[in-house]
Protein backbone atom coordinates (compact mmCIF):
# COMPACT_ATOMS: atom_id res chain seq x y z
CA UNK A 1 0.00 0.00 0.00
CA UNK A 2 1.39 3.33 -1.03
CA UNK A 3 2.23 5.68 1.81
CA UNK A 4 2.69 9.38 1.18
CA UNK A 5 4.57 12.01 3.01
CA UNK A 6 2.69 15.28 3.55
CA UNK A 7 3.59 18.65 4.95
CA UNK A 8 1.35 20.78 7.21
CA UNK A 9 0.57 22.75 4.06
CA UNK A 10 -0.82 19.56 2.47
CA UNK A 11 -3.12 19.07 5.46
CA UNK A 12 -4.39 22.60 4.99
CA UNK A 13 -4.83 21.94 1.27
CA UNK A 14 -7.00 18.93 2.09
CA UNK A 15 -9.18 20.98 4.46
CA UNK A 16 -9.48 23.75 1.87
CA UNK A 17 -10.17 21.29 -0.92
CA UNK A 18 -12.92 19.51 0.97
CA UNK A 19 -14.53 22.79 1.97
CA UNK A 20 -14.40 23.98 -1.63
CA UNK A 21 -16.35 20.88 -2.59
CA UNK A 22 -19.02 21.76 -0.04
CA UNK A 23 -17.95 19.23 2.54
CA UNK A 24 -18.47 20.28 6.17
CA UNK A 25 -15.03 19.77 7.65
CA UNK A 26 -15.28 19.02 11.35
CA UNK A 27 -12.22 18.86 13.50
CA UNK A 28 -10.37 20.16 16.53
CA UNK A 29 -10.41 23.78 17.56
CA UNK A 30 -9.52 25.48 20.82
CA UNK A 31 -12.54 26.82 22.68
CA UNK A 32 -13.77 26.99 26.27
CA UNK A 33 -10.22 26.16 27.39
CA UNK A 34 -10.43 22.77 25.74
CA UNK A 35 -10.06 21.01 22.42
CA UNK A 36 -13.53 20.95 20.89
CA UNK A 37 -14.78 19.37 17.68
CA UNK A 38 -16.45 21.87 15.47
CA UNK A 39 -16.55 23.15 11.91
CA UNK A 40 -12.94 24.18 11.16
CA UNK A 41 -10.89 26.02 8.59
CA UNK A 42 -7.48 25.34 10.11
CA UNK A 43 -5.90 23.08 12.71
CA UNK A 44 -4.66 24.33 16.11
CA UNK A 45 -0.87 24.43 16.44
CA UNK A 46 1.30 23.54 19.42
CA UNK A 47 -1.53 22.55 21.76
CA UNK A 48 -1.11 19.90 24.39
CA UNK A 49 -3.13 18.79 27.35
CA UNK A 50 -2.75 17.45 30.82
CA UNK A 51 -5.28 14.95 32.11
CA UNK A 52 -5.87 13.09 35.36
CA UNK A 53 -9.01 11.89 37.13
CA UNK A 54 -11.32 14.89 37.31
CA UNK A 55 -8.68 17.06 35.66
CA UNK A 56 -8.17 18.55 32.18
CA UNK A 57 -5.95 21.49 31.24
CA UNK A 58 -4.79 22.72 27.86
CA UNK A 59 -1.04 23.26 27.73
CA UNK A 60 1.35 24.92 25.29
CA UNK A 61 3.80 22.49 23.71
CA UNK A 62 6.05 25.13 22.16
CA UNK A 63 6.24 23.17 18.93
CA UNK A 64 4.45 23.03 15.61
CA UNK A 65 2.42 19.88 16.20
CA UNK A 66 -1.17 19.74 14.94
CA UNK A 67 -2.19 16.65 16.92
CA UNK A 68 -0.11 16.96 20.08
CA UNK A 69 -3.08 16.77 22.45
CA UNK A 70 -5.43 13.97 23.31
CA UNK A 71 -9.18 13.91 23.71
CA UNK A 72 -11.27 16.82 24.88
CA UNK A 73 -14.89 16.71 26.01
CA UNK A 74 -16.23 16.66 22.43
CA UNK A 75 -17.00 13.45 20.63
CA UNK A 76 -17.84 12.85 16.97
CA UNK A 77 -21.11 11.38 18.18
CA UNK A 78 -22.61 14.88 18.23
CA UNK A 79 -22.50 14.99 14.43
CA UNK A 80 -23.82 11.50 13.68
CA UNK A 81 -26.29 11.30 16.56
CA UNK A 82 -27.05 14.95 17.30
CA UNK A 83 -27.81 16.03 20.87
CA UNK A 84 -31.22 17.07 19.65
CA UNK A 85 -32.94 15.98 16.48
CA UNK A 86 -36.40 16.36 14.99
CA UNK A 87 -37.81 12.95 14.05
CA UNK A 88 -41.16 13.93 12.58
CA UNK A 89 -43.73 16.67 12.77
CA UNK A 90 -47.47 16.74 12.74
CA UNK A 91 -49.05 19.23 10.45
CA UNK A 92 -52.75 19.30 9.62
CA UNK A 93 -53.18 15.81 11.03
CA UNK A 94 -50.41 14.26 8.91
CA UNK A 95 -47.11 12.83 10.15
CA UNK A 96 -44.26 14.31 8.13
CA UNK A 97 -40.72 12.97 8.44
CA UNK A 98 -38.08 15.50 9.46
CA UNK A 99 -35.27 13.30 8.18
CA UNK A 100 -33.34 15.22 5.58
CA UNK A 101 -30.54 14.47 3.17
CA UNK A 102 -27.48 15.45 5.23
CA UNK A 103 -24.51 17.55 4.23
CA UNK A 104 -21.43 15.62 3.32
CA UNK A 105 -19.14 15.67 6.35
CA UNK A 106 -15.46 14.99 6.93
CA UNK A 107 -14.19 14.23 10.45
CA UNK A 108 -10.62 15.49 10.59
CA UNK A 109 -8.37 14.00 13.25
CA UNK A 110 -10.30 10.95 14.40
CA UNK A 111 -8.29 8.95 16.95
CA UNK A 112 -8.15 5.15 17.04
CA UNK A 113 -10.48 4.89 20.04
CA UNK A 114 -12.90 7.29 18.39
CA UNK A 115 -12.99 5.31 15.17
CA UNK A 116 -13.78 2.25 17.28
CA UNK A 117 -16.53 4.21 19.03
CA UNK A 118 -18.10 5.17 15.70
CA UNK A 119 -18.15 1.55 14.60
CA UNK A 120 -19.81 0.67 17.92
CA UNK A 121 -22.54 3.26 17.44
CA UNK A 122 -22.99 1.90 13.93
CA UNK A 123 -24.10 -1.35 15.54
CA UNK A 124 -26.62 0.48 17.71
CA UNK A 125 -28.20 2.58 14.99
CA UNK A 126 -27.77 0.32 11.95
CA UNK A 127 -28.61 -3.06 13.46
CA UNK A 128 -31.91 -4.87 13.91
CA UNK A 129 -33.50 -1.54 13.04
CA UNK A 130 -31.86 1.26 11.09
CA UNK A 131 -32.17 4.88 12.11
CA UNK A 132 -32.40 6.65 8.74
CA UNK A 133 -30.94 9.90 10.07
CA UNK A 134 -27.87 8.21 11.49
CA UNK A 135 -27.50 5.93 8.47
CA UNK A 136 -27.62 8.73 5.92
CA UNK A 137 -25.14 10.88 7.85
CA UNK A 138 -22.87 7.88 8.17
CA UNK A 139 -23.03 7.22 4.43
CA UNK A 140 -22.00 10.77 3.65
CA UNK A 141 -18.96 10.79 5.86
CA UNK A 142 -15.22 10.90 5.30
CA UNK A 143 -13.06 9.74 8.17
CA UNK A 144 -9.59 11.22 8.36
CA UNK A 145 -7.95 9.49 11.26
CA UNK A 146 -4.71 10.13 13.09
CA UNK A 147 -2.45 7.77 14.99
CA UNK A 148 -1.85 9.08 18.50
CA UNK A 149 1.71 10.20 19.08
CA UNK A 150 1.14 10.61 22.81
CA UNK A 151 -1.24 9.28 25.46
CA UNK A 152 -2.98 11.31 28.11
CA UNK A 153 -2.92 10.41 31.77
CA UNK A 154 -6.37 8.86 31.40
CA UNK A 155 -5.94 6.89 28.17
CA UNK A 156 -6.20 3.09 28.25
CA UNK A 157 -7.03 2.11 24.65
CA UNK A 158 -4.12 -0.33 24.64
CA UNK A 159 -5.97 -2.34 27.31
CA UNK A 160 -9.25 -2.39 25.40
CA UNK A 161 -7.48 -3.20 22.13
CA UNK A 162 -8.87 -0.13 20.33
CA UNK A 163 -5.65 1.85 19.93
CA UNK A 164 -3.38 3.67 19.79
CA UNK A 165 -2.96 2.47 16.16
CA UNK A 166 -5.94 3.37 14.00
CA UNK A 167 -7.86 0.24 13.01
CA UNK A 168 -10.13 -0.41 10.06
CA UNK A 169 -12.83 1.94 8.88
CA UNK A 170 -10.93 5.17 8.24
CA UNK A 171 -10.57 6.67 4.78
CA UNK A 172 -7.20 8.22 5.56
CA UNK A 173 -4.76 7.59 8.38
CA UNK A 174 -2.24 10.25 9.33
CA UNK A 175 0.78 9.88 11.57
CA UNK A 176 2.44 13.04 12.85
CA UNK A 177 6.22 12.83 13.06
CA UNK A 178 8.86 15.29 14.32
CA UNK A 179 6.52 17.67 16.18
CA UNK A 180 9.00 20.56 16.19
CA UNK A 181 8.82 20.66 12.40
CA UNK A 182 6.06 18.18 11.61
CA UNK A 183 5.39 16.09 8.58
CA UNK A 184 2.79 13.39 8.08
CA UNK A 185 2.74 9.82 6.89
CA UNK A 186 -0.51 9.26 5.04
CA UNK A 187 -2.19 5.93 4.29
CA UNK A 188 -5.53 5.23 2.63
CA UNK A 189 -7.89 2.44 3.64
CA UNK A 190 -10.62 3.18 1.11
CA UNK A 191 -11.12 4.41 -2.39
CA UNK A 192 -12.23 7.78 -1.07
CA UNK A 193 -8.97 7.94 0.86
CA UNK A 194 -6.96 7.13 -2.24
CA UNK A 195 -8.75 9.89 -4.12
CA UNK A 196 -7.78 12.39 -1.41
CA UNK A 197 -4.19 11.16 -1.56
CA UNK A 198 -3.95 11.58 -5.31
CA UNK A 199 -5.62 14.99 -5.14
CA UNK A 200 -3.04 16.28 -2.65
CA UNK A 201 -0.07 14.37 -4.09
CA UNK A 202 3.20 14.27 -2.17
CA UNK A 203 6.22 12.02 -2.27
CA UNK A 204 6.08 8.35 -1.36
CA UNK A 205 7.25 7.65 2.18
CA UNK A 206 10.53 5.85 2.69
CA UNK A 207 10.74 2.51 4.49
CA UNK A 208 12.44 4.14 7.46
CA UNK A 209 9.51 6.46 7.91
CA UNK A 210 7.15 3.52 8.26
CA UNK A 211 9.36 2.25 11.06
CA UNK A 212 9.20 5.72 12.60
CA UNK A 213 5.40 5.46 12.65
CA UNK A 214 5.56 2.16 14.47
CA UNK A 215 8.04 3.57 16.97
CA UNK A 216 5.73 6.49 17.70
CA UNK A 217 2.84 4.09 18.32
CA UNK A 218 4.98 1.87 20.52
CA UNK A 219 6.05 4.88 22.58
CA UNK A 220 2.42 6.00 22.94
CA UNK A 221 1.46 2.56 24.10
CA UNK A 222 4.22 2.64 26.72
CA UNK A 223 3.05 6.04 27.91
CA UNK A 224 -0.32 4.67 29.00
CA UNK A 225 -0.24 4.30 32.75
CA UNK A 226 -3.70 2.91 33.14
CA UNK A 227 -4.33 -0.79 32.80
CA UNK A 228 -7.68 -2.40 32.55
CA UNK A 229 -8.37 -6.13 32.61
CA UNK A 230 -11.10 -6.75 30.05
CA UNK A 231 -11.04 -10.53 29.95
CA UNK A 232 -14.14 -12.17 31.38
CA UNK A 233 -15.46 -8.79 32.44
CA UNK A 234 -19.11 -9.41 31.51
CA UNK A 235 -19.42 -12.51 33.70
CA UNK A 236 -17.41 -10.87 36.45
CA UNK A 237 -19.67 -7.81 36.63
CA UNK A 238 -22.97 -9.67 36.27
CA UNK A 239 -21.96 -12.00 39.06
CA UNK A 240 -21.07 -9.04 41.29
CA UNK A 241 -24.33 -7.08 41.16
CA UNK A 242 -24.52 -7.17 44.96
CA UNK A 243 -20.88 -6.32 45.54
CA UNK A 244 -20.48 -3.86 48.45
CA UNK A 245 -18.20 -1.66 46.38
CA UNK A 246 -21.17 -0.28 44.44
CA UNK A 247 -22.12 1.50 47.66
CA UNK A 248 -18.62 2.92 47.96
CA UNK A 249 -18.76 4.39 44.43
CA UNK A 250 -22.23 5.72 45.12
CA UNK A 251 -20.88 7.79 48.02
CA UNK A 252 -18.74 9.73 45.54
CA UNK A 253 -20.88 9.68 42.39
CA UNK A 254 -23.01 12.78 41.94
CA UNK A 255 -25.17 11.17 39.24
CA UNK A 256 -24.45 14.28 37.16
CA UNK A 257 -24.26 12.35 33.90
CA UNK A 258 -21.03 14.01 32.71
CA UNK A 259 -19.57 10.60 31.92
CA UNK A 260 -22.46 9.72 29.64
CA UNK A 261 -22.34 13.09 27.91
CA UNK A 262 -18.65 12.79 27.04
CA UNK A 263 -18.78 9.06 26.28
CA UNK A 264 -18.42 8.44 22.54
CA UNK A 265 -20.62 5.33 22.65
CA UNK A 266 -23.43 6.20 25.11
CA UNK A 267 -26.60 6.33 23.04
CA UNK A 268 -29.54 6.75 25.42
CA UNK A 269 -32.10 9.28 24.31
CA UNK A 270 -35.52 10.56 25.22
CA UNK A 271 -38.28 11.99 23.12
CA UNK A 272 -40.35 15.05 23.77
CA UNK A 273 -43.04 16.93 21.99
CA UNK A 274 -42.22 20.42 20.81
CA UNK A 275 -45.30 22.48 20.16
CA UNK A 276 -44.54 24.97 17.42
CA UNK A 277 -45.96 28.35 18.32
CA UNK A 278 -46.53 29.17 14.67
CA UNK A 279 -49.20 27.13 12.96
CA UNK A 280 -49.78 25.04 16.12
CA UNK A 281 -48.02 22.02 14.68
CA UNK A 282 -46.09 19.61 16.84
CA UNK A 283 -42.56 18.28 16.35
CA UNK A 284 -41.50 14.98 17.85
CA UNK A 285 -37.95 15.54 19.09
CA UNK A 286 -35.28 13.16 20.28
CA UNK A 287 -32.44 14.26 22.53
CA UNK A 288 -29.57 12.78 24.44
CA UNK A 289 -30.39 11.46 27.83
CA UNK A 290 -28.46 9.77 30.58
CA UNK A 291 -29.03 6.63 32.58
CA UNK A 292 -27.97 8.74 35.57
CA UNK A 293 -31.12 10.83 35.27
CA UNK A 294 -33.73 10.00 37.90
CA UNK A 295 -36.53 9.58 35.41
CA UNK A 296 -34.53 7.48 32.95
CA UNK A 297 -35.98 4.31 34.47
CA UNK A 298 -39.39 5.79 35.08
CA UNK A 299 -42.22 3.35 34.78
CA UNK A 300 -45.85 4.13 35.44
CA UNK A 301 -45.96 3.43 39.12
CA UNK A 302 -42.40 4.36 40.00
CA UNK A 303 -38.74 4.56 39.15
CA UNK A 304 -36.84 1.30 38.74
CA UNK A 305 -33.48 2.76 39.76
CA UNK A 306 -34.02 5.42 42.43
CA UNK A 307 -30.58 5.21 44.07
CA UNK A 308 -27.32 6.61 42.72
CA UNK A 309 -25.77 3.22 43.36
CA UNK A 310 -28.24 1.51 41.06
CA UNK A 311 -27.68 4.08 38.33
CA UNK A 312 -23.89 3.86 38.45
CA UNK A 313 -24.19 0.07 38.41
CA UNK A 314 -26.51 0.29 35.40
CA UNK A 315 -24.10 2.51 33.51
CA UNK A 316 -21.01 0.48 34.25
CA UNK A 317 -22.52 -2.97 33.76
CA UNK A 318 -24.19 -1.87 30.55
CA UNK A 319 -21.06 -0.27 29.17
CA UNK A 320 -18.72 -3.13 29.99
CA UNK A 321 -20.95 -6.20 30.11
CA UNK A 322 -24.39 -5.64 28.55
CA UNK A 323 -22.86 -4.17 25.42
CA UNK A 324 -20.85 -7.30 24.73
CA UNK A 325 -24.00 -9.40 24.75
CA UNK A 326 -26.06 -6.83 22.85
CA UNK A 327 -23.58 -5.82 20.18
CA UNK A 328 -20.75 -8.34 20.38
CA UNK A 329 -18.32 -5.69 21.51
CA UNK A 330 -17.56 -3.73 24.68
CA UNK A 331 -19.03 -0.25 24.96
CA UNK A 332 -15.71 1.11 26.22
CA UNK A 333 -12.87 2.01 23.88
CA UNK A 334 -10.46 3.23 26.54
CA UNK A 335 -10.68 6.94 25.67
CA UNK A 336 -10.68 7.96 29.34
CA UNK A 337 -13.07 10.91 28.88
CA UNK A 338 -15.36 9.72 31.66
CA UNK A 339 -12.38 9.82 34.03
CA UNK A 340 -11.24 13.31 33.02
CA UNK A 341 -14.68 14.87 33.10
CA UNK A 342 -15.99 13.26 36.25
CA UNK A 343 -16.22 16.17 38.72
CA UNK A 344 -15.09 13.89 41.54
CA UNK A 345 -12.56 11.93 39.48
CA UNK A 346 -14.17 8.50 39.57
CA UNK A 347 -11.97 6.19 37.52
CA UNK A 348 -13.87 3.26 36.07
CA UNK A 349 -10.73 1.18 35.70
CA UNK A 350 -10.16 1.38 39.46
CA UNK A 351 -13.80 0.75 40.28
CA UNK A 352 -13.88 -2.32 38.07
CA UNK A 353 -10.70 -3.63 39.69
CA UNK A 354 -12.34 -3.26 43.11
CA UNK A 355 -15.53 -4.96 41.99
CA UNK A 356 -13.57 -7.80 40.44
CA UNK A 357 -11.61 -8.32 43.61
CA UNK A 358 -12.92 -11.48 45.30
CA UNK A 359 -14.65 -10.79 48.60
Amino acid at each position, binding site marked *: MLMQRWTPRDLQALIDGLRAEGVRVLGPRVGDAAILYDEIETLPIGCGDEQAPGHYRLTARHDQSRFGYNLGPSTWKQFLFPPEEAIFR*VQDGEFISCREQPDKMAFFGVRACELAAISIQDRVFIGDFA*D*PGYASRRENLLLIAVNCSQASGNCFCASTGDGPAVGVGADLILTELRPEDPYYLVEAQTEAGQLMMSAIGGPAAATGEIDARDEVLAATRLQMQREFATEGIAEALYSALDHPHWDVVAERCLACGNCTQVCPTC*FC*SSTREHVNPVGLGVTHMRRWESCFAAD*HSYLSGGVVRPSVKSRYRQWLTHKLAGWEL*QFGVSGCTGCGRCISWCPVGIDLTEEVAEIRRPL
Partner: protein
Amino acid sequence: MKDPLLPHLVEMQSWQQESELVFTFQVAPPEEYGSFRAGQFNMLYLPGMGESAISISGDPADRNHLTHTVRAVGNVTRALHGLRPPARIGLRGPFGRGWPLAAAEGRELLLMAGGIGLAPLRPVLFQALAAPERYQRVTLLLGARSPEEILYSEQLLRWKSDAGLQFLATVDVASAAWRGDVGVITDLVQRAAINPQQTVAMVCGPEIMLRFCARRLRELGVASDAIHVSLERHMQCGTGFCGHCQLGPYFLCKDGPVFAYPAVEPYLMTQEF
Protein backbone atom coordinates in the same frame (compact mmCIF):
# COMPACT_ATOMS: atom_id res chain seq x y z
CA MET B 1 -35.09 4.09 3.84
CA LYS B 2 -38.08 3.17 5.98
CA ASP B 3 -38.13 5.02 9.28
CA PRO B 4 -39.05 2.74 12.18
CA LEU B 5 -39.73 5.84 14.30
CA LEU B 6 -42.32 7.40 11.99
CA PRO B 7 -45.88 6.50 13.01
CA HIS B 8 -48.73 5.67 10.69
CA LEU B 9 -51.97 7.55 10.99
CA VAL B 10 -54.75 5.17 12.01
CA GLU B 11 -58.40 5.59 12.84
CA MET B 12 -60.12 4.42 15.99
CA GLN B 13 -62.93 1.99 15.18
CA SER B 14 -64.35 1.21 18.62
CA TRP B 15 -63.91 2.12 22.26
CA GLN B 16 -65.17 0.24 25.29
CA GLN B 17 -64.85 0.64 29.05
CA GLU B 18 -63.60 -2.49 30.83
CA SER B 19 -63.33 -1.24 34.41
CA GLU B 20 -62.87 2.07 36.15
CA LEU B 21 -59.49 2.87 34.58
CA VAL B 22 -59.18 0.19 31.93
CA PHE B 23 -60.57 0.38 28.44
CA THR B 24 -60.24 -1.46 25.14
CA PHE B 25 -60.20 0.16 21.74
CA GLN B 26 -59.60 -0.93 18.19
CA VAL B 27 -57.93 0.82 15.30
CA ALA B 28 -57.73 -0.05 11.62
CA PRO B 29 -54.28 -1.48 10.90
CA PRO B 30 -52.07 0.55 8.55
CA GLU B 31 -51.84 -0.91 5.05
CA GLU B 32 -48.30 -2.25 5.37
CA TYR B 33 -48.82 -3.61 8.88
CA GLY B 34 -48.93 -7.32 8.09
CA SER B 35 -49.69 -9.45 11.13
CA PHE B 36 -48.59 -9.51 14.76
CA ARG B 37 -47.63 -12.36 17.06
CA ALA B 38 -49.28 -12.89 20.41
CA GLY B 39 -47.33 -10.92 23.03
CA GLN B 40 -46.10 -8.15 20.74
CA PHE B 41 -46.83 -4.47 21.26
CA ASN B 42 -47.44 -1.31 19.28
CA MET B 43 -46.21 2.22 19.92
CA LEU B 44 -49.21 4.54 20.01
CA TYR B 45 -48.73 8.25 19.48
CA LEU B 46 -50.81 11.28 20.29
CA PRO B 47 -49.56 14.59 18.88
CA GLY B 48 -48.38 16.85 21.66
CA MET B 49 -48.60 14.05 24.24
CA GLY B 50 -46.02 11.55 23.04
CA GLU B 51 -45.84 7.80 22.63
CA SER B 52 -46.74 4.83 24.78
CA ALA B 53 -46.00 1.13 24.34
CA ILE B 54 -49.26 -0.82 24.39
CA SER B 55 -49.51 -4.56 24.03
CA ILE B 56 -51.91 -5.93 21.45
CA SER B 57 -54.82 -7.70 23.11
CA GLY B 58 -56.87 -8.89 20.12
CA ASP B 59 -56.97 -11.90 17.84
CA PRO B 60 -53.82 -12.33 15.73
CA ALA B 61 -55.97 -13.84 12.97
CA ASP B 62 -58.06 -10.67 12.69
CA ARG B 63 -56.39 -8.54 10.00
CA ASN B 64 -59.04 -5.84 10.14
CA HIS B 65 -58.60 -4.64 13.69
CA LEU B 66 -55.75 -3.96 16.06
CA THR B 67 -57.04 -4.19 19.61
CA HIS B 68 -55.43 -2.54 22.63
CA THR B 69 -56.41 -2.72 26.26
CA VAL B 70 -55.08 0.19 28.23
CA ARG B 71 -54.98 1.35 31.81
CA ALA B 72 -55.27 5.11 32.06
CA VAL B 73 -52.34 5.99 34.29
CA GLY B 74 -49.95 8.11 32.22
CA ASN B 75 -50.33 11.21 30.07
CA VAL B 76 -50.79 9.34 26.83
CA THR B 77 -53.05 6.64 28.23
CA ARG B 78 -55.22 9.17 30.03
CA ALA B 79 -55.62 11.08 26.78
CA LEU B 80 -56.47 7.85 24.96
CA HIS B 81 -59.14 7.28 27.59
CA GLY B 82 -60.86 10.43 26.42
CA LEU B 83 -60.84 9.62 22.69
CA ARG B 84 -63.72 8.06 20.78
CA PRO B 85 -64.11 6.81 17.20
CA PRO B 86 -63.28 8.05 14.63
CA ALA B 87 -60.35 9.75 16.38
CA ARG B 88 -57.04 9.44 14.55
CA ILE B 89 -53.85 8.49 16.33
CA GLY B 90 -50.32 7.47 15.39
CA LEU B 91 -49.21 3.84 15.45
CA ARG B 92 -46.02 1.97 14.71
CA GLY B 93 -45.35 -1.68 15.19
CA PRO B 94 -45.55 -4.48 15.86
CA PHE B 95 -42.49 -4.65 18.11
CA GLY B 96 -40.92 -7.25 20.34
CA ARG B 97 -40.78 -10.99 20.62
CA GLY B 98 -44.03 -12.71 21.42
CA TRP B 99 -45.01 -15.81 23.37
CA PRO B 100 -43.41 -19.10 22.26
CA LEU B 101 -46.67 -20.79 21.28
CA ALA B 102 -44.88 -23.36 19.16
CA ALA B 103 -43.01 -24.59 22.24
CA ALA B 104 -46.34 -25.40 23.88
CA GLU B 105 -47.70 -27.54 21.05
CA GLY B 106 -48.43 -31.09 22.15
CA ARG B 107 -48.16 -29.98 25.76
CA GLU B 108 -50.26 -28.23 28.39
CA LEU B 109 -50.58 -24.49 28.04
CA LEU B 110 -50.87 -22.70 31.37
CA LEU B 111 -51.48 -18.96 31.33
CA MET B 112 -51.18 -16.93 34.52
CA ALA B 113 -52.29 -13.32 34.35
CA GLY B 114 -52.46 -10.58 36.93
CA GLY B 115 -54.58 -7.48 36.40
CA ILE B 116 -54.06 -5.91 33.02
CA GLY B 117 -51.35 -8.52 32.40
CA LEU B 118 -54.19 -10.48 30.84
CA ALA B 119 -54.16 -8.12 27.84
CA PRO B 120 -50.96 -9.43 26.22
CA LEU B 121 -52.05 -13.01 26.98
CA ARG B 122 -55.49 -12.78 25.38
CA PRO B 123 -54.04 -13.19 21.86
CA VAL B 124 -52.64 -16.53 23.06
CA LEU B 125 -56.15 -17.59 24.10
CA PHE B 126 -57.61 -16.57 20.74
CA GLN B 127 -54.96 -18.57 18.96
CA ALA B 128 -54.86 -21.62 21.22
CA LEU B 129 -58.61 -21.99 21.55
CA ALA B 130 -59.00 -21.78 17.77
CA ALA B 131 -56.83 -24.92 17.52
CA PRO B 132 -57.33 -26.72 20.84
CA GLU B 133 -56.22 -30.05 19.37
CA ARG B 134 -52.67 -28.74 19.44
CA TYR B 135 -52.56 -28.68 23.24
CA GLN B 136 -53.26 -31.27 25.92
CA ARG B 137 -55.11 -28.62 27.89
CA VAL B 138 -55.40 -24.83 28.01
CA THR B 139 -55.65 -23.23 31.44
CA LEU B 140 -56.01 -19.62 32.48
CA LEU B 141 -55.37 -18.61 36.09
CA LEU B 142 -56.27 -15.02 36.73
CA GLY B 143 -55.58 -12.69 39.62
CA ALA B 144 -57.30 -9.33 39.95
CA ARG B 145 -57.71 -6.66 42.54
CA SER B 146 -61.47 -7.07 42.82
CA PRO B 147 -64.24 -8.84 40.90
CA GLU B 148 -65.10 -5.58 39.12
CA GLU B 149 -61.60 -5.42 37.67
CA ILE B 150 -61.59 -8.81 35.97
CA LEU B 151 -61.12 -8.10 32.27
CA TYR B 152 -63.06 -9.75 29.44
CA SER B 153 -65.12 -11.71 31.98
CA GLU B 154 -67.99 -12.58 29.63
CA GLN B 155 -65.64 -13.81 26.96
CA LEU B 156 -63.60 -15.82 29.46
CA LEU B 157 -66.73 -17.51 30.83
CA ARG B 158 -67.84 -18.28 27.26
CA TRP B 159 -64.45 -19.81 26.49
CA LYS B 160 -64.77 -21.81 29.70
CA SER B 161 -68.19 -23.20 28.86
CA ASP B 162 -67.85 -23.58 25.06
CA ALA B 163 -64.18 -23.87 24.18
CA GLY B 164 -62.78 -26.13 26.89
CA LEU B 165 -60.76 -23.47 28.69
CA GLN B 166 -59.93 -24.36 32.28
CA PHE B 167 -60.44 -20.98 33.92
CA LEU B 168 -59.98 -19.99 37.55
CA ALA B 169 -59.92 -16.47 38.91
CA THR B 170 -59.09 -15.07 42.30
CA VAL B 171 -59.29 -11.55 43.67
CA ASP B 172 -57.47 -9.74 46.46
CA VAL B 173 -60.62 -8.60 48.18
CA ALA B 174 -64.34 -8.78 47.49
CA SER B 175 -67.68 -7.94 48.97
CA ALA B 176 -69.66 -10.76 50.52
CA ALA B 177 -71.73 -11.03 47.34
CA TRP B 178 -68.77 -12.50 45.41
CA ARG B 179 -69.01 -16.25 44.90
CA GLY B 180 -65.53 -16.82 43.52
CA ASP B 181 -62.08 -17.19 45.00
CA VAL B 182 -60.43 -14.65 47.26
CA GLY B 183 -56.70 -15.06 47.66
CA VAL B 184 -53.55 -14.96 45.60
CA ILE B 185 -52.92 -16.32 42.14
CA THR B 186 -50.18 -18.65 43.33
CA ASP B 187 -52.78 -20.60 45.33
CA LEU B 188 -54.84 -21.17 42.17
CA VAL B 189 -52.10 -23.39 40.81
CA GLN B 190 -53.03 -26.04 43.38
CA ARG B 191 -56.74 -25.76 42.67
CA ALA B 192 -56.36 -26.26 38.92
CA ALA B 193 -55.89 -29.58 37.22
CA ILE B 194 -52.47 -29.41 35.63
CA ASN B 195 -49.72 -31.83 34.83
CA PRO B 196 -46.56 -29.91 35.78
CA GLN B 197 -44.16 -32.07 33.77
CA GLN B 198 -46.17 -31.39 30.61
CA THR B 199 -46.74 -27.71 31.25
CA VAL B 200 -45.51 -24.69 29.33
CA ALA B 201 -46.37 -21.63 31.42
CA MET B 202 -46.81 -18.06 30.20
CA VAL B 203 -47.02 -15.49 32.94
CA CYS B 204 -47.78 -11.78 32.74
CA GLY B 205 -48.46 -9.33 35.52
CA PRO B 206 -46.63 -7.19 38.02
CA GLU B 207 -42.99 -8.19 38.48
CA ILE B 208 -43.49 -9.43 42.02
CA MET B 209 -46.28 -11.71 40.82
CA LEU B 210 -43.97 -13.14 38.15
CA ARG B 211 -41.39 -14.01 40.78
CA PHE B 212 -43.89 -15.69 43.08
CA CYS B 213 -45.59 -17.56 40.25
CA ALA B 214 -42.28 -18.82 38.89
CA ARG B 215 -41.31 -20.04 42.33
CA ARG B 216 -44.60 -21.85 42.86
CA LEU B 217 -44.52 -23.42 39.39
CA ARG B 218 -41.02 -24.72 39.97
CA GLU B 219 -42.01 -26.14 43.37
CA LEU B 220 -44.73 -28.06 41.58
CA GLY B 221 -42.29 -29.47 39.05
CA VAL B 222 -42.70 -27.23 36.02
CA ALA B 223 -39.34 -27.02 34.24
CA SER B 224 -37.67 -23.62 34.68
CA ASP B 225 -37.17 -23.09 30.98
CA ALA B 226 -40.83 -23.90 30.35
CA ILE B 227 -41.80 -20.79 32.31
CA HIS B 228 -42.07 -17.68 30.15
CA VAL B 229 -42.71 -14.20 31.46
CA SER B 230 -43.54 -10.88 29.86
CA LEU B 231 -41.67 -7.98 31.46
CA GLU B 232 -42.19 -4.29 31.61
CA ARG B 233 -39.81 -1.37 31.49
CA HIS B 234 -40.24 2.02 29.88
CA MET B 235 -40.25 1.14 26.20
CA GLN B 236 -39.88 4.45 24.47
CA CYS B 237 -38.69 3.68 20.94
CA GLY B 238 -39.32 -0.03 20.35
CA THR B 239 -36.13 -0.35 18.33
CA GLY B 240 -33.31 -0.57 20.87
CA PHE B 241 -32.15 2.99 20.12
CA CYS B 242 -33.23 4.84 23.25
CA GLY B 243 -31.87 2.58 26.00
CA HIS B 244 -34.71 3.05 28.47
CA CYS B 245 -36.09 -0.47 28.63
CA GLN B 246 -32.88 -2.30 29.39
CA LEU B 247 -32.64 -5.13 31.88
CA GLY B 248 -29.09 -6.43 32.12
CA PRO B 249 -28.00 -7.39 28.61
CA TYR B 250 -31.52 -7.18 27.19
CA PHE B 251 -33.53 -4.54 25.46
CA LEU B 252 -37.04 -5.46 26.51
CA CYS B 253 -38.42 -3.84 23.37
CA LYS B 254 -36.61 -6.09 20.92
CA ASP B 255 -35.18 -9.01 22.90
CA GLY B 256 -38.46 -9.24 24.88
CA PRO B 257 -40.87 -8.40 26.34
CA VAL B 258 -41.29 -12.18 26.57
CA PHE B 259 -38.38 -14.11 28.06
CA ALA B 260 -37.75 -17.60 29.35
CA TYR B 261 -37.69 -17.02 33.09
CA PRO B 262 -34.18 -18.36 33.77
CA ALA B 263 -32.74 -15.79 31.34
CA VAL B 264 -34.00 -12.86 33.38
CA GLU B 265 -34.26 -14.30 36.88
CA PRO B 266 -30.87 -13.08 38.18
CA TYR B 267 -31.69 -9.54 37.08
CA LEU B 268 -35.21 -9.59 38.50
CA MET B 269 -33.82 -10.82 41.80
CA THR B 270 -31.37 -7.89 42.00
CA GLN B 271 -32.92 -4.88 43.65
CA GLU B 272 -33.12 -1.68 41.60
CA PHE B 273 -31.55 -3.29 38.57
